C-alpha cells in the first residue's frame, strides 16, 4: 500500500510542478521548448498511462465499498487528461487550475482511506509526561549532526576560503544557531503539550495537532520558499501552499497510520504516531540509518548545487535532513529517555513550583542552552571591535558561511527578521515581475529621432551577445586565460571596455534593455515593445536588413520587417555559436552595399544548457588553470569558431565595412561562492560582461573613448546611434550613453549610480563609485550586501555602512519610482 501511496504522491507532485512551471511566464519558454530532463520527458509523454497505472494500483488498496467511487473519479480524470493532455498546457490560468487539480487524486484517496480504516489504531489513554526527555535530545542531536554533515561537505568542497580562523568561528556560530533552532522546535512542542495537558487531551488529539502542525509547516515552506522562488505571490501562492501541503501531510499521516495500525504496543503520543514507521529500530539500525541519511544528504548537496535555483533544492534538502534525523533519533530513543530528569517522580498535588521544576526538566535544560547562547552573543558584542579576521567582520564571515552551508543558511532564514528595510523590500517587490497585463503608458522613450547624415552607406553591424559569457575567461580581460587566441587577437584590434556591466542579471530583461538602450520596467515580454525599441527604430531609419536569431524573447518583442532573414531558423531556444557562425559564413557572399544587421545570442554557456547536455566535471584540468573546466572548454571551442568566421569575413573583403561587437547579456556564478547560475542573485561575476567593439578604421578615426570607465550593455544602442551619426541623444539616468565621442568634444562627466537588477526576482543593486562598489538589496532573502567589485571577477564582499545602505536604498527607490513614472504604470 505504501508503494502505491508513494507512486500516487510522485505522480501528483510531478504533474502539479509541471503545470506550475507552464503557468509561470519565466519558465514557460523552457517548457514550451521541451527543455526537460530525459525522465521528465518520459513522464510527460506517458502522462495518462502513468495516471491509469498509479490510480489502478491505488484503487486496489481501497475497501470494496469505496473502490467504485474512486474508479469513477479516476475515469473522469483520465477522460480530462485525454481531452486536455498535460503536454499541451500553456502559460495561462488553466495551467494554474491544473496545478491545483493534480493533487486531487491523492487527497481523494487518503480521504477515503481515512473514513474507512482497515484496522483501528490502538492508543494509550494519557500522554506520557516524560516524553520531553526524548524530544529535546533528539532535536538537538538532529540539529548538531545536520550542521556537522553540511559543514563537512562545505569544507571538503570549498575548503576555508577566508582562512581557518574564520571557518572555525563560522562553524561555532553555526552550531549555536542550530542549537537555538532545536530549542525553538522543542519550545513549540512544549508549548503545544502544555496546552494539551491543560485540556487533558489524549494522544489521538495530539496526533491530530501534529498533523495540523505538519500541514502548516509544509504550507509555509511551499508558499515562502518554493513559490516565492518562482515569483508567485499573493492569494494563489497561499492557496496552492495550503492545498499541496494538505495532500503531502495527508500522505505522510496515512503512511504513519498504516504503520501504527500494525504496531505491537499502543501509540502513546502524536510524535510516537508520526514516527511509527521507524518504531522498533535497534540502536545499531538507528546508527546505520543516520549514517545513510548523512551520506545521502552530503551526496545530494554536492550533486544538486549546480542544478539549484537560488538555493531552493539545498534549503529543502537541509530541512528534510533535520526532520529525518529528528525522527530517527526520537524513534531510536524509545523507552530509554536520554535526559533523565525528575519528571518520572512527578506526583499530583505537589506545590506548583516543585511541579514546574519536575515536569519541565528538559525545559530547564533548554533554558540553560539559551542562556549559553546569550553568553556567546554577549562575548561577541563585547569583542566585536577585535573580532576582525583578516579584516573581515563577523557578519561577513557568517554571510560567506551561509553561501556555502545550506543548513546554516536555512536556519538563518528561519530566524531572520523581515522588519529590517521592510518598506524598501516591499517597495521593490511591488515593482518586480509586473503582470503581463500591466498597462504601460510610456512617455516618449525615443533615444533620438534625428536622421543620420546620409551619403556613405552605413557599415554592416555584427552583434554577438554570448549568453552567460564571463570576461575572466577571455585572455583580453584575464591574461592567465590562454585558451582564447582568436578572441584575444580580435580584441587586440578592437576597443576593449574593461569595466563593462549588464544592468540585468538574466536574459529575460537584459536582452530587451539592450534593444531599448535604457532601463525598463521589471516586466517580461513588455508589449507593445515598439515604443521603446530604439535599436529597431535605428535599423529602420538607416535601412538595415536584419539577420537575427529569433529567440523566444525577440520573437515576442520584435515586429517582422520586410527583408528579414532569420538565423538558426530551425533551432528555437538552442543556439550554438559555431552552428550560427557556419551559417553566417555561408551567407557572407550575400553582403553587399545594402547594410545588414546581424544579431545572435548563442546559449552554449548557459548553466541550464550545460546541465542538460552534461558536463565532465574533472577538476584541475591543466589546460584551464583556476577555471571551471566544462565552461572553459566550451569557451575554447567557441573561440576557434569565431576565429574561423573572422578569417572568412576578412577574406570576403567586408571586415573593413563592418562594426563587430562581442559582448554578453550577463555573466554567471560558477560555484566559486557555493552559488551557481544567475537566478536571483546579483554578484560582481554575474554583472560583469565582456564588451569588445571593433570599428572600421574610417569610423574609428577622430573618436575618443575611456576603456577604464564603467560601461553598460544599455550603452550599446546609444553608441550605435552616435556612430551612425544620429545626434541629439536623450541623456538621463534611464538611458545608456555613447561609449565614443568626437575628439573635439568634451568627455562625458562621471556616471551617476547605475541601477542593476535580477531579471527574475526582487533583487536590485546599485553600482557606484565608477563601477567599483556594488550595493545589493535582496528582497527575496530580506538582506543587503555590499561588494568591492575589484578585483575581478568575484570582487570582495565588504560590510555595508549603515549610512551608505540607507543612501543606496533611497537611490534605488528613486530610480525604480522614476521607471514607474516614465513608463506610466501604477503600483
Amino acid at each position, binding site marked *: 500500500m505504501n508503494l502505491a501511496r508513494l507512486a500516487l504522491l510522485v505522480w501528483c507532485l510531478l504533474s502539479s510542478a509541471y503545470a506550475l512551471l507552464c503557468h509561470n511566464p519565466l519558465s514557460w519558454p523552457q517548457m514550451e521548448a521541451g527543455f526537460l530532463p530525459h525522465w521528465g520527458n518520459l513522464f510527460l509523454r506517458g502522462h495518462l498511462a502513468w495516471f491509469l497505472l498509479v490510480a489502478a494500483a491505488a484503487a486496489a488498496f481501497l475497501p470494496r465499498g469505496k473502490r467504485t467511487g474512486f474508479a469513477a473519479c479516476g475515469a473522469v480524470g483520465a477522460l480530462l487528461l485525454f481531452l486536455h493532455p498535460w503536454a499541451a498546457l500553456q502559460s495561462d490560468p488553466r495551467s494554474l487550475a491544473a496545478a491545483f487539480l493534480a493533487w486531487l487524486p491523492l487527497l481523494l484517496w487518503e480521504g477515503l482511506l481515512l473514513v474507512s480504516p482497515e484496522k483501528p489504531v490502538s492508543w494509550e489513554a494519557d500522554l506520557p509526561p516524560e516524553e520531553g526527555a526524548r524530544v529535546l535530545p533528539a532535536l538537538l542531536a538532529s540539529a548538531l549532526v545536520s550542521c556537522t554533515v553540511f559543514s563537512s561537505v562545505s569544507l571538503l568542497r570549498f575548503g576555508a576560503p577566508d582562512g581557518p580562523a574564520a571557518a572555525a568561528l563560522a562553524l561555532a*556560530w553555526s552550531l*549555536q*544557531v542550530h542549537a*537555538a*533552532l532545536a*530549542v*525553538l522546535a*522543542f*519550545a*513549540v512542542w*512544549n*508549548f503545544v*503539550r*502544555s*496546552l494539551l*495537558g*491543560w485540556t487533558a487531551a489524549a494522544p489521538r488529539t495530539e496526533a491530530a495537532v501534529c498533523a495540523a502542525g505538519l500541514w502548516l509547516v509544509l504550507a509555509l515552506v511551499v508558499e515562502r520558499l518554493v513559490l516565492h522562488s518562482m515569483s508567485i505571490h499573493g492569494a494563489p501562492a497561499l492557496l496552492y501552499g495550503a492545498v499541496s501541503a494538505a495532500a503531502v501531510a495527508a500522505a505522510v499521516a496515512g503512511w504513519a497510520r498504516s504503520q501504527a495500525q500494525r504496531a505491537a504496543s499502543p501509540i502513546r503520543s502524536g510524535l510516537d504516531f508520526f514516527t511509527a514507521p521507524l518504531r522498533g529500530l535497534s540502536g545499531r539500525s538507528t546508527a546505520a540509518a543516520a549514517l545513510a541519511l548523512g551520506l545521502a544528504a552530503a551526496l545530494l548537496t554536492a550533486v544538486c548545487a549546480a542544478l539549484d535555483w537560488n538555493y531552493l533544492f539545498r534549503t529543502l534538502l537541509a530541512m528534510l535532513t533535520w526532520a529525518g534525523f529528528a525522527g530517527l533519533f526520537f524513534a531510536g530513543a524509545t523507552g530509554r529517555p536520554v535526559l533523565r530528569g525528575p519528571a518520572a517522580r512527578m506526583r499530583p498535588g505537589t506545590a*506548583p513550583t516543585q*511541579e*514546574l521544576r519536575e*515536569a*519541565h526538566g528538559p*525545559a530547564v535544560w*533548554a*533554558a540553560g542552552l*539559551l542562556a549559553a*547562547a*546569550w553568553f*556567546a*552573543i554577549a562575548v*561577541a*558584542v563585547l569583542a*566585536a571591535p577585535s*573580532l576582525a579576521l583578516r579584516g573581515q*567582520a*563577523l*557578519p561577513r564571515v*557568517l554571510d560567506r558561511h551561509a553561501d556555502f552551508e545550506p543548513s546554516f543558511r536555512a*536556519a*538563518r532564514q*528561519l*530566524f*531572520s*527578521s523581515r522588519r*529590517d528595510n521592510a518598506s524598501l523590500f516591499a517597495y521593490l517587490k511591488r515593482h518586480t515581475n509586473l503582470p503581463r497585463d500591466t498597462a504601460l503608458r510610456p512617455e516618449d522613450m525615443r533615444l533620438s529621432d534625428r536622421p543620420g547624415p546620409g551619403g556613405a552607406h552605413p557599415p554592416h553591424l555584427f552583434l554577438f551577445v554570448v549568453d552567460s559569457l564571463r570576461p575572466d575567461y577571455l585572455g583580453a580581460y584575464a591574461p592567465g586565460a590562454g585558451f582564447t587566441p582568436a578572441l584575444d587577437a580580435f580584441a587586440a584590434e578592437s576597443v576593449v571596455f574593461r569595466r563593462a556591466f549588464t544592468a540585468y542579471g538574466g536574459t529575460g530583461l537584459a536582452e530587451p534593455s539592450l534593444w531599448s538602450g535604457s532601463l525598463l520596467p521589471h516586466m517580461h515580454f513588455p508589449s507593445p515593445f515598439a515604443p521603446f525599441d530604439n535599436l529597431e527604430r535605428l535599423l529602420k531609419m538607416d535601412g538595415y536588413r536584419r539577420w537575427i536569431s529569433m529567440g523566444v524573447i525577440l520573437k515576442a518583442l520584435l515586429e517582422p520587417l520586410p527583408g528579414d532573414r532569420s538565423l538558426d531558423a530551425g533551432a528555437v531556444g538552442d543556439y550554438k555559436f559555431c552552428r550560427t557562425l557556419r551559417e553566417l559564413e555561408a551567407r557572407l557572399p550575400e553582403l553587399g552595399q545594402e547594410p545588414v544587421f546581424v544579431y545572435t545570442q548563442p546559449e552554449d554557456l548557459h548553466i541550464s544548457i550545460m546541465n542538460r547536455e552534461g558536463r565532465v566535471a574533472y577538476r584541475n584540468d591543466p589546460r584551464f588553470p583556476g577555471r571551471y573546466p566544462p565552461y572553459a572548454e566550451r569557451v575554447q571551442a567557441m573561440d576557434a569558431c569565431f576565429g574561423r568566421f573572422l578569417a572568412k569575413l576578412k577574406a570576403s573583403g567586408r571586415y573593413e565595412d563592418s562594426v563587430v561587437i562581442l559582448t554578453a547579456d550577463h555573466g554567471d556564478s560558477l560555484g566559486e561562492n557555493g552559488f551557481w547560475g544567475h537566478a536571483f542573485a546579483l554578484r560582481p561575476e554575474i554583472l560583469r560582461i565582456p564588451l569588445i567593439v571593433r570599428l572600421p578604421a574610417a569610423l574609428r578615426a577622430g573618436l575618443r573613448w575611456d576603456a577604464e570607465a564603467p560601461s553598460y550593455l544599455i550603452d550599446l544602442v546609444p553608441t550605435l546611434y552616435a556612430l551612425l551619426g544620429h545626434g541629439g541623444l536623450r541623456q*538621463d539616468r534611464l538611458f545608456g550613453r555613447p561609449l565614443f565621442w568626437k575628439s573635439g568634444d568634451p568627455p562625458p562627466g562621471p556616471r*551617476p*549610480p547605475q541601477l542593476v537588477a535580477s531579471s527574475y526576482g526582487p533583487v536590485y543593486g546599485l553600482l*557606484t563609485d565608477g563601477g567599483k562598489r556594488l550595493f545589493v538589496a535582496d528582497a527575496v532573502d530580506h538582506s543587503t550586501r555590499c561588494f568591492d567589485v575589484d578585483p575581478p571577477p568575484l570582487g570582495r564582499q565588504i*560590510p555595508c*555602512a*549603515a*549610512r551608505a545602505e*540607507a*543612501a543606496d*536604498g*533611497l*537611490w534605488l527607490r*528613486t530610480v525604480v519610482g522614476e521607471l514607474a513614472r516614465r513608463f506610466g504604470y501604477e503600483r
Partner: protein
Amino acid sequence: MLRPAFIRVGAAAALLAAAWWTGAALTRSRALVAPLAGQNLWQRVTEAQQRKDPRAALRHLRELLRHDPDDPVYLTAQAQAYTELGDWEAVARVGERLLETSPFPDLACAHVTQAYSMMELQREALAAFERCMRLDPDNPEGILHFAQSLEHWGRFDEAETLYARLARSPSMTGAAEGLARLRSRRREKARGKSR
C-alpha cells in the same frame, strides 16, 4: 487546579519566546558590529514621522547625524521635519548641505527651493531653482514649482515658457491652469492697451 496549568502554559510560552529571540539575536549579526543600528534610532524616526511628531524625529536624527553627519537620508528626514515645523531657515540650511554633499542632490531641490520661496528670498530661490534645473531638467514637479514661483515674482514670460513645456502632460493640470491664467492675463493686458 487552574493555577499550575496557567504556570505551565506561561512557562512554556516564555521558553518559546526566549528561544525565538535567542535565534533572532544569533542570526541578526548586524547588531553585533553596528551598535547604532541596534538602538533602532532610525525606526524611532520613522515612527515619529508617522505620528506627526517632528520634534521627536529631530531628536533621534540629531543622534544619528552625530555619527553620520552627511547621510543624505538622515538629512532629508531632517529637512522634512523642519518643514513640518515651518522652520524655513533650518530647511534651507539642511537643503544646502544636501545639495553640497549628497550623491543625489536633486532630491534636496524641493526642500531648498520651497524654503527660499517661503522666506521670500527671491535671489537665493532663483539660484536654487536654476541649479536644480541643471541637476534634473525633466522633473515635471520641479518645473511646475519653478514656473509657479516665477509667476509669483511677476516674471510671466519665463513662467509661461515653463508652463508650456508641461501643458501637454495630462497629469500636470496645474501647468495647463497656469498657462491659461497667464494667457488670459496677457489678453486682458492687450485689451487694456487697445482701449
